[in-house]
């Protein structure tokens, strides 16, 4: 409509009218000196490992701002959909920007509680994992700056673990390390849980060498691995330390274990 009315333009010999819509210079153009940065990194590390009938999630309890330690006890592990009657079988761990982590946890928790209220049964880990992905992706252009790991038991009672990137890509895995010391812990887990680079001695030469077969580890062994992973990460990474919180999910409930780590 407007294009029809404007066709031909106004004759120049008549009294003029200003129709120029050339945009006025806006305030936001030009370089900005000091912009507000809505993110920070609160350090710390998390990890998750699954077994045949359990899942373990772990995280250190240190919270940092740069070289400062904010507090020595700020848990990164949360029971999701917990009504205070220990019915929950899902655990979320978040590491990265703690404020986003908390907001994410609260949203997922509210959704899982509403699901139980509306359907009269608890949400499965699989469904919860998919929902967490959509929550993260909904903020694709202003992401929750966190690396999340979700753990629980699947419909067959097997340990289930899902890991996420900040914008919602996710994958079910056997084990995953995240956060500041992820690059220190993950190779250790690859070797000790998935037996990467382990071969059966004298099973052949060169490419004939047989890799060691993966087996699902007993709970006690995994607890040992997790503690070793964190004591070692504490030695090598300044943002990791103070305390280790482990949540072990089995069909009987969620067991919590706290072990002190070095505080330096």
């Amino acid at each position, binding site marked *: 409509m407007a294009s029809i009315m*404007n066709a031909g333009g*106004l004759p120049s010999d008549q009294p003029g009218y200003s129709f120029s819509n050339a945009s006025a210079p806006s305030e*936001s153009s030009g370089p900005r000196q000091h912009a*507000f940065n809505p993110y920070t990194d609160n350090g710390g590390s998390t990890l998750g490992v699954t077994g045949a009938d359990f899942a373990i999630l772990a995280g250190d309890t240190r919270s940092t701002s740069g070289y400062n330690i904010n*507090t020595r006890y700020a848990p990164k592990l949360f029971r999701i959909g917990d009504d205070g009657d220990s019915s929950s079988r899902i655990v979320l761990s978040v590491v990265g920007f703690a*404020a986003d982590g908390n907001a994410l946890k609260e949203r997922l928790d509210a959704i899982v509680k509403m699901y139980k209220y509306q359907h009269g049964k608890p949400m499965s880990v699989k469904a919860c994992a998919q929902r967490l992905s959509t929550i993260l992706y909904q903020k694709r252009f*202003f992401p929750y700056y966190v690396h999340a790991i979700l753990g629980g038991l699947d419909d067959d009672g097997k340990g289930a673990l899902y890991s996420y990137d900040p914008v919602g890509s996710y994958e079910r895995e056997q084990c995953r390390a995240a956060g500041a010391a992820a690059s220190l812990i993950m190779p250790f887990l690859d070797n000790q849980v998935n037996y990467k680079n382990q071969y059966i001695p004298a099973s052949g030469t060169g490419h004939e060498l047989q890799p060691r077969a993966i087996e699902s580890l007993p709970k006690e062994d995994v607890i040992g691995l997790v503690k070793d992973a964190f004591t070692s990460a504490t030695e090598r990474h300044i943002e990791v330390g103070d305390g280790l919180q482990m949540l072990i999910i089995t069909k009987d409930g969620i067991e919590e274990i706290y072990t002190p780590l070095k505080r330096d």
Partner: protein
Amino acid sequence: MNHYPQAWGRPRDDVYGPYDNSYFQASAPQTHTQSPAVTGTSVLGVKFKDGVVIAADNLASYGSLARFTDVKRLRTFPPNTVIGFGGDVSDMQYLDRLLQSLDIRENYLSSYGHVLNAKNLHTYLSKVLYKRRSDFNPLWNMLLVAGLDDDDKPFLASADLLGTTFSSPTLATGFGAHLAQPLLRKLMPHDEDSVKDVTKEMAVEAIKACMKVLFYRDARSLDKYSIAVVTKDGVELKEDQKLEDQSWAFADQIRGYGTQVN
């Protein structure tokens, strides 16, 4: 009137001059605070067995200018919560108004029972701060909330302009995080387990010592400060404390201090 309908109702250039389109331009992006203006420095807080001690000095700086020297940065919320504000003073005053209207609303809804304790207020304030940072319109503050939790146990937690929250038996914002926090942590060798061994006197003394260290070393600090002790019985707030027992004896040995300029 001419036969160009698109010209009808608009001012004629030969009568009114060329139309200033900039008034018509509603599309300039909304801008927000990108930096704080008048600011307060550190806030310190320590738990002890029956409650929490919290302190902040009375200075509000404008950059490096000591602009206002009588600004109370501890605000109380009935019946027994104290909030200490660091960072932008106008944002502090906004939050203070927000808390006052919250208090009025709470009292209107029920005049008896159902009080908001320090933990409730900390949750609320952290949501306000997180919402504002998510709108890219932050409230430029670091704050400490001191009081009691649901079980009447000492509560001390911090919240900042990003919505980050954490709790610890000793807390300090700003410069205090570097200078005071290590000193305060000496009181709590076993963190939360040590709180029961700390008396009110120990906590007050530690805070006063730290305020002095901060006055010595933090250029945006003042020797006049507010200190509050929060317990189950209420808030004991003193707003015009002077730092005691300062020692500047070293100064006359050093060139450049005091009257000795050369």
